[in-house]
């Protein structure tokens, strides 16, 4: 795994050779802004349906091992 990860990092290191002074980073390929909507509740409570896939549920809570400390 380590050797393969090193080869991947070496490949992406090629980017460092490129002069990108003055270039604006591009987050969205079409340079659009995040669409916003009104802050109102639109979802309904369907937790029973969604929790049907849960491994371990008790009183609508997901059970996990104790966080020690």
């Amino acid at each position, binding site marked *: 795994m380590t050797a393969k990860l090193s080869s991947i990092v070496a490949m992406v290191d090629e980017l460092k050779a490129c002069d990108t002074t003055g270039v604006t980073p591009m987050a969205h*390929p079409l340079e659009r802004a995040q669409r916003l909507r009104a802050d109102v509740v639109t979802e309904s409570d369907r937790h029973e349906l969604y929790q049907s896939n849960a491994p*371990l549920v008790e009183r609508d809570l997901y059970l996990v091992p104790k966080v020690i400390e």
Partner: protein
Amino acid sequence: MHTRTLAQLADDLRARRVSATELAKHYLDRVERLGSKLNAFITVTAEQALAQATVADRRLASGDATGLTGIPIAHKDIFCTAGVKTSCGSRMLDNFVSPYDAGVVERLANAGAVMLGKTNMDEFAMGSSNETSFYGPVRNPWDHALVPGGSSGGSAAAVASRIAVAATATDTGGSIRQPAALSGITGLKPTYGRVSRYGMIAFASSLDQAGVLTQTAEDAALLLEAMAGFDERDSTSLDEPVPRYSQLVHDKWDGVTIGVPESFFDGLESENAAAVRSALAELEKLGAKLKSVELKYIHLSVPAYYVVAPAEASSNLSRFDGVRFGHRAERGAGEDLTAFYMRNRGEGFGAEVKRRILTGTYVLSAGYFDAYYLQAQKARKLISDDFARAFRDVDFVAGPTSPTPAFGIGQKTDDPIAMYLNDVYTIGANLAGLPAISIPCGFVRNLPVGLHLVAPPLAEARLLKVAHHFQRATDWHARVPPSYA
């Protein structure tokens, strides 16, 4: 029946020459007899398909049908399908039954399409050969010892072998177009935001796009028209009207100029290059003008992609922790939460996914973010500007879809970089959010190869039209692998 295109079958259904139920049974039979050798399907939804076909027949009888009503299609197992297992090709979701339908699934179901099942794919869409799937590799119908391409290998193999009329798929770095080329079919990745990503399991959110794998550009137009459109549940969905692709694809040919970056042919094997050049010559005969263009920074595509995509994947895949759904390991004695996460994720993910999460986390970490992620986003801007500049002079940018035809199963799995380089021609379109298509354009050593065309944003109609005219003058797209004819 199975050598007919979607458009032809739609006609047959409308004219009642065949019923949706007959069609569903015919394809389900083919899936059962021929699908397992290809390993193209993860889940076959036979009962559902027959139920949907019955409803389709009623719609067809009452005149309430669309162009897709009764057409048997397959969905890549990356699209959530309510009540049906949705695995994303991973052990992590082997036990996951989706509680809802993806936007794409909803739209096609409403149009009356019949779902044959969920197709096999590279795990979490990470791969170019469909060899990273938890469910085993998919085989190329043209030669079972070879890969069909990836990550949408199952969808591609299903359409190429005609065990499905058409299939949905996704493309983040080439995962629709490259399998289309390697399997001898048509594959379209729309403009970023053209098709809803709601319910489409996320790999790299700024690159992922849903698209189609079909026998022809005409078929792609029919499917895209039903799939595309604004979805308020996808915050990156474009609020733009959907053109009547199914009609526009038949529009008269107008003069087009096709840009060809000569650097694309450097080091390309001569037979592949010859097939692509002869396809371009065919387009010239049809009236296209060819023009040399330069994409100065295109050599940065693969490194930029292998920073951006894994970075976004590391974020998207952090939700898979075994707490609320998905794989949860057997409880170890005295185990704490951290150990619990490590075992769930360690067991749930395959090696390629782990590699990408690790590199993604690394390039986002403090001290490395500027050098890698920010730098990659700047490279992305340079690549996008290159295309924008080219499109001032040309209508499309053309090239080969893939550096080689289909390669052997197991041939490149030991060398991630060799595998990544399969996407060298396709990745640019994802980084720049542009629509792109791969169409069959010839054979090299009896294996299909594809011609790749990239267009400006929202120019899918023109792209499909050019591809359709090419397919009217040639017959590469009509070839079926001998064992599946």
